[in-house]
């Protein structure tokens, strides 16, 4: 733990090469649901990074102290941690910055059912990351989600202005755009010879 080269590997791997949204298909609901406007997409991405960092810390704690005694509780304890983290973050933001709270609206509680968060905790466990590695992984993965959300929102805003046959509009078009984005991100696979 703490080898800087390894940390960079983890960060870039989570950010680009194995982008959570575009190559693992995680967090697709906000990816399609909230990518209509650029500003909202960016804020949701930031909220995701925040929740991911806290979840990563909590998962490291659970892995170190609780789960060795009761491995079958892994999934249940993780989901409870994610749900309570989101609840906690919601309360903190409401108290400290009501403006941001209003801007995030319904998306904040919905982060609970964002599979990317739970997946982060699970991947971190299955790859045996320590606390520092887990944090770097969380920031990279959250950054990757934000990147994908912002790219998608930009493309969709552009697509709204062009003339597109009515039957393609909507989900079908979004999926095909996402496919092309995902193909572009495959280009990053050459950055590292190993896969993570």
């Amino acid at each position, binding site marked *: 733990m703490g080898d800087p080269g390894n940390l960079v590997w983890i960060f870039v791997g989570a950010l680009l090469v194995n982008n959570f949204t*575009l*190559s*693992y*298909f*995680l*967090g*697709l*609901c906000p990816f*399609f649901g909230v990518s209509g406007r650029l500003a909202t997409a960016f804020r949701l991405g930031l909220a995701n990074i925040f929740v991911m960092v806290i979840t990563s810390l909590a998962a490291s704690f659970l892995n170190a102290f609780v789960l060795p005694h009761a491995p*079958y509780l*892994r*999934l*249940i304890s993780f*989901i*409870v941690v994610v*749900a309570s983290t989101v609840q906690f973050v919601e309360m903190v933001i409401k108290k400290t910055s009501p403006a941001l709270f209003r801007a995030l609206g319904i998306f904040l509680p919905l982060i*609970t*059912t*964002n*599979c990317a968060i*739970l*997946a982060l905790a*699970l*991947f971190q466990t*299955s790859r045996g990351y320590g606390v520092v590695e887990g944090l770097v992984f969380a920031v990279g993965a959250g950054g990757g989600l934000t990147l994908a959300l912002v790219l998608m929102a930009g493309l969709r805003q552009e697509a709204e202005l062009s003339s597109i046959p009515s*039957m*393609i509009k*909507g*989900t*079908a*078009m*979004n*999926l*095909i755009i*996402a*496919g*092309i984005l*995902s*193909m572009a991100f*495959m280009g990053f696979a050459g950055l590292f010879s190993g896969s993570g």
Partner: protein
Amino acid sequence: MATTARGGNGLPILPPDPSPGMLPEFVKGLWRENPVFVQVLGMCPALAVTNTAVNGLAMGGATLFVLVCSSFLVSALRRLIPKPVRISTYIVIIATFVTVADFALQATVPAIHRELGAFISLIVVNCLILGRQEAFASKYPVGPAVADALGMGSGFLLSLTLLGGAREVLGKGALFGVSLFGPDFEPWVIMILPPGGFFMLGFLLLGFAVAKEARQKIAERAVGKEAA
């Protein structure tokens, strides 16, 4: 045909909402309210693991199991679960059955379990399952709730198998691991890679949209003829 169209707006007339009977609750999930193709729910697992038909089938089967069991339990306990903590209760119930499914798959078909990886655990956050608990199982008795879960789960299973099969045929030239076209077939490898998932679902949805529009035009013409 005229009976399936409503005047000018072209929306199909749905039969008046039936009192929750078993059969209609089961059938609606298969096609009319198909979770993947119509409601576009549960996208993450629907795209992530459907690079072969077998994986799609396994994922669909696990989801069906979890959905039916949790719907049964939530419906049976619906008068005991306090409203303010209902979502957390559903999540804990769902997580319990997912853990059961996870261990069962690991014990019986380790190869498939390895390929599906973390996505089995991620069934917990499949919005389809939580959605059915909130929208249906928590309001109806056990019978209709289980029928609804069976229908939605089977619809999910069929869609995943269809997606996986289509991607496997194009990307590997095989179906359920059996080679279809012989050694001369040049596989369309992109289809079993991540972008292929987006493309395949996108094109399938596009196909349904085209079919729907064509059907509506036919129905409108039939209505027009009757009026004339």
